[in-house]
């Protein structure tokens, strides 16, 4: 199903806001959205939330014969799927350009950077090697799928444990997880993709574009880097002309962001490892906050508080002091008191009264809506 097209005024509004250095959700130009990483009960299952974009990654392994050209190396297989759950624009079994781009970028980021030691995946040279399969499913599309997918993939690979094997000559025994503890993969470094969206012919850039911002972008630059400041891959799409210093600036921003994200991934892995060792409950069910159906749930919305004090004092100074709201009661007669003066009687207006000017009427009109208390 085709997505509803963006209207012209929405497009103009977004571009004007970007020119004024403002974003829809109040972030700064170089800010990422909130990243939440959660691991499942199985080893190698990871779910990443980048704002509202949700991605699930599952790593699995299988013993297969190796490729003829590389008999001593294991095989890495990457597969990214855009499910219709993510966006109504994604149709099942449709090979769209976006799908191909994301798959290629993920492969380039993780396979070509040699972040996993494939030699250690060899069991019997030329006959049996481990094939590590990484499946990434996009659950919700709110922009910047590439970053979320790369974070999920590398977290899942770091979390994954493969079964232990014992080789005796030509016999290979694969131990189940109950017999022997599974072994983690040997990962040299963690490459993470950072996306930069360019607007208005490359004059403005935004880090981590959300879905609306992606629709009005001119071009996209994706830099895959690790925390040792090594660039693993750069991809520029959209056909915009980028200057050299723009690309250098982006790589500097990327190195800062990548080190933050790598720290976050390591912390999440550490937490999970600790909980599993202590024997506590782990998995998705524990890491999701308790969402009760009956309560009103809203994400915390950031509020800009930079000039709140001045604005508040301004408003206080400008408003006049309010007059006494409640008038004191007036004793009319014994046992009868009156509080306040009523408004003009509007029930029955005689014809001659209409000619009189209104202001006089208000002062001399009959009193109604008055509180009379008759005390016996």
């Amino acid at each position, binding site marked *: 199903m*085709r997505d*509803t*097209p*963006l*209207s*012209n005024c929405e*497009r103009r509004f977004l571009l004007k806001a970007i020119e004024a250095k403002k974003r829809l959700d109040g972030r700064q130009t170089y800010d990422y959205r909130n990243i939440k990483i959660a691991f499942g009960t199985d080893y190698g299952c990871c779910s990443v939330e980048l704002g509202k974009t949700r991605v699930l990654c599952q790593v699995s392994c299988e013993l297969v014969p190796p490729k003829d050209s590389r008999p001593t190396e294991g095989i890495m297989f990457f597969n990214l799927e855009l499910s219709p759950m993510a966006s109504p624009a994604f149709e099942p079994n449709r090979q769209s350009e976006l799908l191909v781009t994301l798959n290629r970028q993920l492969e380039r980021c993780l396979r070509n950077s040699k972040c996993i030691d494939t030699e250690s995946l060899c069991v019997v040279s030329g006959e049996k090697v481990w094939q590590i399969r990484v499946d990434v499913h996009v659950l919700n599309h709110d922009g910047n799928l590439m970053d979320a997918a790369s974070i999920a993939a590398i977290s899942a690979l770091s979390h994954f444990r493969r079964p232990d094997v014992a080789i005796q000559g030509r016999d290979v025994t694969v131990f189940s997880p109950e017999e022997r503890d599974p072994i983690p993969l040997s990962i040299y470094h963690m490459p993470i993709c950072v996306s930069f969206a360019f607007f208005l012919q490359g004059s403005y850039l935004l880090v981590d574009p959300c879905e609306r911002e992606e629709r009005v972008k001119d071009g996209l630059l994706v830099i895959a880097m690790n925390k040792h400041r090594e660039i693993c891959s750069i991809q520029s799409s959209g056909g915009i002309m980028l200057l050299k210093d723009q690309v250098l600036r982006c790589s500097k921003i990327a190195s800062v962001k990548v080190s933050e994200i790598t720290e976050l991934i390591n912390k999440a892995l550490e937490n999970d490892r600790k909980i599993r060792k202590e024997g506590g409950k782990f998995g998705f069910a524990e890491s999701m906050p308790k969402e009760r159906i009956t309560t*009103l749930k809203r994400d915390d919305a950031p509020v800009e508080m930079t000039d709140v004090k001045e*604005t508040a004092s301004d*408003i206080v100074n400008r408003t006049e002091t309010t007059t006494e709201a409640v008038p004191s009661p007036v004793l009319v007669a014994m046992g009868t008191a009156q509080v306040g003066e009523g408004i003009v009687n509007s029930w029955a207006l005689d014809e001659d009264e209409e000619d009189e000017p209104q202001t006089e009427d208000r002062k001399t009109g009959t009193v109604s809506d008055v509180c009379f208390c008759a005390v016996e």
Partner: protein
Amino acid sequence: MAVEMRLPAVHKHISLAASQSNQDDKHLVVPGDVITSDTGFMRGHGTYMDEDRLTASVAGEVERVNKLICVRPLKTRYNGEVGDVVIGRITEVQQKRWKVETNSRLDSVLLLSSVNLPGGELRRRSAQDELAMRDYLQEGDLISAEVQSIFSDGALSLHTRSLKYGKLGQGVLVFVSPSIVKRQKTHFHNLPCGASIILGNNGYVWLYPTPGQQDEEAGGYYTSMEPVSLSDREVISRLRNCLLALAAHKVLLYDTSVLYCYEASLPQQIKDILKPEIMEEIILETRQRLVEHEG
């Protein structure tokens, strides 16, 4: 900027229209409900055969015409009929036609031969006209058009062969469900409150300031870019909030109901109309007036 804050509170729903005259036995079904076990019926849209039993596949009302049973869904994409007025947005400019998005299952088609040429001439469309298509309607433009015919696959063929249809200029577009727009003789209204409205059958409603002088020659081309006055803009904002209130309470939209809702909302501030309690008050008053008006 001062912001209004409200705490969540328990909300008592006023049961509106609980005992109305048209509350006769409507056969409402949800997907999976068995409509009948009688095999003598032919199955129409919205049904399927599940082991000899006719079952509903959509949520809606069962309609029976002699031997044909179909289910008409309550919430659906717009299904066009010939003669409907629709509002759409141009998504593509192709050879000799435009593709228009009209909230239906397929994009509608506006053929080059179905639009009025500038100056109102009647002649065969030449290759030059084809090249100049983009000057008239581009991607992202809003148009009002009428459904001329329906293709076999369900796509609508539109035409703007009248001076009242064409490109829309400054105004506000409101999205409502297609099923609450009432079918009437005319869908273009100049409301007495000072704005004009086009109620598209496809659920798109267009509010715009009433044009001063009708430029006969321009037809659907000329979109005035003069700034709209503040009073006009306030009227349009109030109308837009009223439309959202009517849509939320599933009141049929036509010029009278919109006008009554506008008048009922006058004592409130424009932004207060969107609050649920005030929305209910306004709709209650509107409903009462509509019932009196009919009775």
